């Protein structure tokens, strides 16, 4: 018995398998306070247990550091060969990520989570390799020491005096599914150290003596335990809604330099302990913008904050405190964390105090940080850099002096001062602060030298001129500062303006695109001049393979990685950094729609705002591609709808065109056969004609029904039906043909109602009974029975004829197949195919076989559902005597 319906159990199993495929691997971290506590050993021990449980375990990479204990533990486990990477003439053995992904074990062991890969590897960090393994659905065991955790890095450094460079972002550790703390009391660790059983990496080995003091070991142990405890705590609270409530999020004001870095780590730890989200912002003051060094440092700090789980922003504005207060209030952030360097004199209001004054509702937390190291100010270098400004300051001063010399004959000295101030203003507006300051000083000096008596001398006769100089210098400097600031702000504003305009232009141009090719063309045309560099686009085809669509040649391997992972890669990123271009995904709301690549110029990638602008552009392009995609989908749907309408139209036209002549033929033939004027032989012929026309009509009906069913035009009109009734109407339809065959019925009176389409089910029975008539000699019975089974209703139609040839029980349901190939029996084998199509549409089955006592047996099984409420039983009418 074949069933064309999918088996639900099998479906479920497939579904589960799909789920498992899509499932992300689980990460287990063996966490220790220090090297030598036995993390690797513990990891291997557990791997052995899992392997015994039947798990496919692969050792991706384990550093034995030639310790016998550990090496012995490797016995019995499959070890993945390392990949040789040649770097600066040295062959280095690294973890082979691609081989591991290809091998796809259930569990892989990769030691030392914090390891940095050799340059030229896909990812610079091992934890990124592990992320990819997890994403591929592979479980990973790994090890890490407390000092490698990014947020604790400085604390450990502070305790031990040794800073390790290799760090792991805390989110990697926090998102691990399982943390096992491997602990060893300090005394035992020291003993193992003396026995030489502990391997020490690079700089720790050098600082062995200071590092392995018992005090340090205790502190590290406490730190590790506390971190692990925080993890457990977080796990306990995992059921609670993620993220912090409004007003609980911390806002860290990040300054450039080490002070900012300290604050980032402090706030990260604080947020972790409070279990709240945090944000890190740096206010982009004109002062910050002027210093490339400070700006770069601020960006580094923000990147660190991002890696520690913060949302970051670079906010433009003239006053730090004002911007902070506004941002905190706008985003409903309750607490502002501000670093405060030690100051000798507290004359000026601190940033923290100013924030507190501007927004009294905020909680301001002050963290002591080291003073920012003074920027090396080399005035000559600065003047040298801005020689043009300096020249103009000199020129301006000289020209003002000459002009003023002429005018002093007419004007008062006070007006001469005004002239100098004007030149300071012009110079500072045009050439900035340094030129302005220079101009101020020169102006005062020139005024003193040339105009204040005694002239041509810096000596001053009247002491009250000293006050004049003072005020003049102050005014000039203030003026130069203010105008320079104005100039900076105008510059920033115009840069933003340009970005906004470019974005607007891009989205406007894209909004008109109707095809993928147009989107590509517009994107390249708009972005290439804006970024003044080479661009390329790659889009996926229907088979999810990326193809170059325009612009410069892309490395499709890198593009493919970006497309699959939806993350940026290439130059300036943490993935495949050796690529010559920067690749970013075109992410749209539904999915990634393609990849954009561009060759970064200069330190462009360091400019967060430019990068964000590019990301916004990419999102715009992604959105346009998605829109175009859905337009295409909608069009295809419309086309297929149109096709269906046409098909239905055609079907009813054919149906009409075929039936009309049949109707006319039958009418005329039957008229002739009943006509009293026709000769008896003619009437007999007419009667035969009538029979043949009816047969042809049956065939046409079957053909059209089949066509309708296959065109999907038939909607089942299910209703609760009595089997007896549909059997009755089928028999009546075949009344004439059944004349020579007795019908044996076995239908219990108490059969339940079954839900089916009565018209179609009648077609099934008519075809089955007709079949029985066709293939059996006259006088043999047709046997029709029905039975209610627990879940189904079974109807059988049987005859006592030759039966179905063995091996054809299934093939007779195919279209145009007949039981006896060379028989003279009329009819194309479409009837059974139609029966199967109808029964299958009802969710039932139809099978053919032979009765044990001989003759064909067709069994129709229909599903039984809960029948509707039945009417209340009634009393009989009273017996009225006639």
């Amino acid at each position: 018995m074949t069933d064309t319906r999918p088996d639900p159990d099998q479906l479920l199993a497939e579904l589960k398998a799909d789920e498992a495929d899509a499932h992300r691997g689980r990460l287990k971290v063996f966490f220790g306070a220090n090297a030598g506590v036995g993390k690797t050993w513990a990891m291997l021990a557990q791997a052995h247990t899992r392997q015994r449980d039947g798990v496919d375990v692969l050792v991706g990479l384990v550093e034995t550091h030639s310790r016998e204990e550990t090496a012995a533990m490797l016995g019995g486990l499959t070890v993945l060969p390392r990949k040789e990477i040649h770097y600066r003439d040295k062959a280095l053995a690294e973890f082979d990520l691609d081989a591991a992904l290809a091998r796809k074990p259930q569990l892989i062991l990769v030691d030392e989570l914090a390891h940095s890969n050799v340059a030229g590897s896909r990812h610079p960090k091992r934890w990124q390799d592990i992320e990819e393994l997890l994403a591929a659905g592979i479980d990973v065991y790994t090890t890490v020491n407390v000092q490698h955790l990014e947020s604790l890095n400085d604390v450990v450094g502070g305790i031990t005096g040794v800073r390790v460079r290799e760090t792991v972002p805390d989110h990697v550790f926090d998102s691990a599914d399982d943390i096992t703390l491997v602990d060893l009391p300090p005394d035992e660790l020291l003993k193992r150290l003396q026995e030489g059983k502990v391997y020490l990496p690079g700089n720790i080995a050098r600082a062995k003596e200071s590092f392995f003091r018992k005090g340090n070991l205790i502190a590290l142990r406490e730190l590790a335990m506390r971190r692990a405890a925080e993890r457990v705590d977080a796990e306990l609270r995992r059921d609670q809604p993620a993220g912090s409530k409004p007003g609980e999020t911390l806002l860290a004001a990040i300054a450039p330099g080490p002070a900012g870095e300290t604050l980032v780590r402090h706030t990260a730890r604080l947020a972790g302990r409070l279990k709240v989200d945090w944000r890190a912002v740096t206010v982009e003051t004109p002062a910050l913008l002027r210093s490339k060094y400070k700006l770069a440092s601020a960006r580094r700090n923000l990147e660190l904050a991002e890696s520690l789980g913060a949302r970051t922003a670079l906010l433009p504005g003239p006053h730090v405190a004002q911007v902070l207060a506004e941002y905190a209030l706008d985003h409903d952030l309750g607490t502002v964390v501000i670093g405060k360097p030690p100051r000798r004199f507290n004359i000026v209001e601190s940033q923290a105090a100013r924030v507190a004054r501007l927004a009294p509702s905020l909680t301001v937390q002050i963290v002591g940080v080291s003073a920012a190291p003074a920027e090396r100010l080399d005035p000559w270098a600065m003047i040298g850099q801005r020689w043009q400004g300096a020249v103009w300051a000199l020129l301006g001063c000289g020209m003002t002096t000459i002009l003023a010399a002429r005018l002093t004959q007419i004007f008062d000295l006070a007006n001469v001062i005004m002239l100098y101030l004007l030149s300071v203003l012009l110079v500072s507006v045009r050439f900035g602060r340094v030129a302005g300051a220079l101009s101020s000083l020169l102006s005062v000096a020139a005024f003193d030298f040339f105009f204040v008596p005694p002239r041509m001398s810096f000596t001053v006769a009247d002491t009250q001129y000293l006050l004049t100089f003072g005020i003049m210098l102050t005014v000039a400097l203030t003026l130069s500062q203010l105008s320079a600031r104005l100039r900076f702000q105008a510059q920033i504003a115009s840069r933003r303006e340009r970005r906004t305009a470019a974005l607007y232009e891009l989205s406007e141009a894209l909004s008109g695109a109707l095809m993928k090719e147009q989107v590509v063309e517009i994107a390249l045309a708009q972005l290439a001049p804006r970024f003044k560099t080479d661009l390329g686009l790659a889009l996926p085809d229907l088979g999810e393979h990326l193809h170059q669509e325009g612009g410069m040649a892309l490395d499709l391997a890198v593009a493919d990685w970006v497309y699959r992972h939806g993350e940026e890669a290439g130059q300036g990123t943490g993935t495949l950094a050796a690529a010559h271009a920067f690749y970013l995904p075109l992410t749209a709301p539904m999915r990634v729609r393609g990849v954009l690549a561009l060759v970064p110029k200069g330190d462009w990638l360091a400019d967060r705002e430019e990068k964000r602008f590019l990301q916004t552009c990419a999102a715009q392009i992604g959105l346009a591609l998605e829109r175009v995609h859905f337009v295409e989908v909608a069009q295809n749907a419309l086309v297929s709808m149109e096709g269906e309408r046409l098909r239905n139209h055609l079907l009813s036209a054919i149906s009409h065109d075929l039936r009309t002549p049949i109707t006319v033929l039958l009418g005329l033939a039957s008229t002739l056969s009943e006509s009293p004027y026709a000769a008896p032989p003619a009437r007999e012929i007419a009667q035969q004609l009538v029979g043949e026309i009816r047969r042809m009509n049956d065939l046409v009906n079957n053909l059209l029904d089949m066509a309708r069913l296959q065109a999907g035009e038939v909607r089942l009109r299910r209703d609760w039906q009595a089997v007896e009734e549909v059997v009755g109407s089928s028999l009546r339809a075949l009344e004439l043909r059944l004349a020579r065959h007795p019908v044996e019925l076995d239908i219990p009176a108490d059969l339940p109602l079954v839900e089916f389409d009565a018209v179609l089910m009648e077609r099934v029975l008519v075809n089955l009974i007709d079949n029985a008539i066709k293939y059996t000699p006259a006088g043999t019975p047709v046997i029709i029975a029905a039975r209610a089974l627990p879940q189904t209703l079974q109807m059988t139609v049987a005859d006592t004829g030759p039966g179905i040839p063995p091996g054809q029980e299934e093939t007779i349901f195919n279209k145009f197949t007949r039981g006896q190939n060379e028989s003279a029996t009329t009819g194309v084998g479409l009837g059974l195919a139609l029966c199967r199509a109808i029964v299958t549409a009802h969710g039932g089955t139809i099978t053919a076989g032979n009765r044990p006592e001989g003759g064909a047996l067709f069994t129709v099984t229909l599903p039984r559902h809960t029948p509707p409420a039945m009417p209340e039983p009634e009393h009989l009418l009273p017996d009225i005597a006639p």
Partner: protein
Amino acid sequence: MNAQKPVLVIIEDEPQIARFVSMTAESAGMQTWHATTARQGLVEAGTRQPDLLILDLGLPDGDGLDLIREIRAFSEVPILVLSARSQETDKVAALDAGADDYLTKPFGVNELLARLRVLLRRHAKDSPGDGQVTLGDVEINLVARTVSKAGDAVHLTPIEYRLLATMIRHAGKVITHRQLLLEVWGPAYVEHSHYLRIYMGHLRQKLEDEPAQPRHLLTESGVGYRLLLQHN
């Protein structure tokens, strides 16, 4: 003579079918008029004072249903609908809109004549007055509300009796599920077609010799039921 001939209007776009129908009707002593469109048919139905109307549901110029409703607005003339198989929904809609019976294409001359006779007789005036109806060996006295089969009293429930009486009232022509439910159970039950299946089953068990091969209480699949007074 002409005045006594029943008048038949055929609304059919296929001339061959129309000719065969006219021929049959004329041979049975009727006067026929032919219209090829619904519009023309409406005019004929309004002007010829027909005793019977035959309407093809597949007219090219419009919905036969609308035509039935329009005719029903001014006339009680019996309407026989011609339709193709697999148009059960259309048939039911036509019957519920006011058509009296249907005939599925293709049909023989006898089927057509039988339908015409039933409809003309019904129109001539309803049922004999003595209230006595015979279905084979089943005797129903509508006045005394008694039913007997082969001389033995048959006990029906009130609903079974009402169902039977309704079927007798529409004897010879098809009656849709909806019409039966409406007349027997009431407007709240028009969706409860499974009630009909149950009670029709009971009636057949009590009145038919072979319930699965009924001779009088016939099923018209997908449309309704038909009571055949005498089996031919």
